[in-house]
């Protein structure tokens, strides 16, 4: 049985093919170092300059065992905040679903230019993870404080404005109920195209429209003594603060809020979100220095 060592034409092509494949693989492996720009427009953002806020803290406060409004304190924000001008739209979110990185929604919006609604904290987090991967820059949910900062003059202070009669806890329940009932009566819950509720002084749109927004702030419960000194604090990271026409605690997996305890409250109309872009070390350098660095 003779064996021929003469290279055949098919043999040559195979070897060449293998070499090319190896090259392509090397290129692919190298690719994550510099990712191509995503095939969709980057989210429009607004830069909210540093400021000192008079901020009503998040959380449920009690003083001497009775519920009170959370204290309003001075908060210094030292870095500019980069935040999406618009809430994430249904079309934006659909790309994440197509990519297999976000879960399908129970009732997708009929139009892409509507804000995405019916999303849970988990859904919003999935989207942030995907967008971060696609753009190579970190996107995340804002904290309650950041959201308030971006909301600017559109922020709704949801203090009841009175500390109820110490002997009658029902006054607060009735006041809450009344406030929520008035809000509901005055608003149409049907989502409108992004931008419909207009921009604030920072160019951030639709703050306190009819879509409430998830934050990454966990629900806190703070006990204070009669003098206002904090005596205890608990935090529950299964429940997050949602911001909008009022602040509401919301369990992380809820997509469509219903009423509160024993169902006597009025829930947010819709749940959506917008993200902040985490500023990299490079963003923090003075502009002149930044220009000297390679792109």
């Amino acid at each position, binding site marked *: 049985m003779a064996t021929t060592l003469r290279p055949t034409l098919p043999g040559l092509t195979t070897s060449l093919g293998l070499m090319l494949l190896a090259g392509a693989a090397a290129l692919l492996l190298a690719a994550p170092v510099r990712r191509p720009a995503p095939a969709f427009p980057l989210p429009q953002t607004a830069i909210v300059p540093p400021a000192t806020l008079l901020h009503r803290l998040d959380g449920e406060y009690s003083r001497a065992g009775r519920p009170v409004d959370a204290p309003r304190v001075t908060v210094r924000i030292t870095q500019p905040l980069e935040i999406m001008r618009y809430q994430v739209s249904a079309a934006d979110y659909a790309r994440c679903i197509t990519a297999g990185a976000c879960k399908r929604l129970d009732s997708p919006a009929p139009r892409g230019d509507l804000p995405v609604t019916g999303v849970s904290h988990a859904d919003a987090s999935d989207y942030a993870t995907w967008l971060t991967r696609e753009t190579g820059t970190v996107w995340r949910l804002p904290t309650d404080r950041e959201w308030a900062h971006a909301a600017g003059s559109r922020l709704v202070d949801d203090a009841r404005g009175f500390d109820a009669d110490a*002997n009658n806890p029902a006054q607060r329940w009735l006041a809450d109920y009344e406030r929520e009932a008035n809000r509901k009566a005055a608003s149409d819950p049907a989502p409108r195209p992004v931008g419909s509720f207009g921009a604030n002084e920072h160019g951030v749109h639709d703050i306190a429209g009819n879509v409430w927004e998830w934050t990454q702030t966990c629900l806190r419960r703070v006990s204070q003594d009669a003098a206002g000194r904090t005596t*205890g604090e608990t935090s529950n990271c299964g429940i997050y603060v949602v911001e909008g026409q009022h602040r509401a605690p919301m369990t992380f997996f809820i997509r469509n809020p219903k009423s509160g305890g024993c169902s006597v409250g009025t829930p947010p109309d819709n749940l959506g979100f917008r993200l902040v872009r985490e500023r990299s070390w490079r963003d923090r350098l003075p502009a002149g220095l930044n220009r000297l660095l390679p792109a």
Partner: protein
Amino acid sequence: MGQGLKMGEELKLTRRSILAGAAATGAIVQAASAPAQAQAVMTKASATDIAKLPRVKPKLVDPPFVHAHEQVATGGPKVVEFTMTIHEKKIVLDDAGTETYAFTFNGTVPGPLMVVHEGDYVELTLINAETNELMHNIDFHSSTGALGGGGLTEVNPGEKVVLRWKATRQGVFVYHCAPPGMVPWHVTAGMNGAIMVLPRDGLKDGQGKALKYDKVYYVGEQDFYVPRDANGKFKRYASVGESHEDVVKAMRTLTPTHVVFNGKVGALTGKNALTAKVGETVLIVHSQANRDTRPHLIGGHGDYVWATGKFRNPPERDLETWFIPGGCAGAALYTFLQPGIYAYVNHNLIEAFELGAAGHFKVEGEWNDDLMKQILAPAGI
């Protein structure tokens, strides 16, 4: 058998002997007066007798409110005239904008609560609006004969009919539309309401003590069956006729898509929450013309409850939840003792919180620490 005999004997009592009994002991009056009253209302009046009766014409109001009425009747029996116009109309069932065709007595789901006294005559003018597509009628569970009046009240669009019947039984009763071949469709399209036939001397606690209410609310619970398309979305139809086949299919699943109070999810909440004050006594009349329900007042009770709604039976006391079978109305009397927000629900809580069968009471007044006090506010362990 023995009971029947006893009833017969009591019916033979003359008015004079009852009065003599009254002088002897109060207890006998209580025992004997009910059948005696039954006898009085069962007495057949001639057309001339009825013609002589005073006539009143209360103006019906939309639920949950109830037209002005006396709790204790002054004077003898009357002819009480009501007029209701039937409207077929599209209604929105929830905040998501789900639509359905409702068939309504007087334009509302449920139809208005009528109030008369035992021995009164109800004279109803029923108008089927010209704009409607279907024939309708009315079956009063409180009336006697002709399928509750249904057989004598079939009206086509653009027609009217007048029916008179005698209120011989005390209690709250359902009325509903019952057109041949289409009864459940009409009833589950909201075409039902209730009538309250009060004892002439007012409500009693079962031991002779009079019961009065400061307010009365009428809650009509309704199960709806809205068809869905292939994607699970609720369908809409251009006309009543087009919806019929799909709706019947949805009905046959016996799984309602909505169970609501007063025609819409949240109809008795927020700006339209029911109100009361601490110390006020409220009578809640609750009807469900098609399906069982189990009302419950979260944070309160039923002080006196006629779950099946018939006032000749003694009320049950201190109930937590009461059962009203489908096709029945019930009544519960409660005096509010604490301020706050109360949820009034069908205590199948899935029906209450997922399908809509919940309303709210807003109650103002002084808090009673003796009844309840928070000793330690929630704090870290």
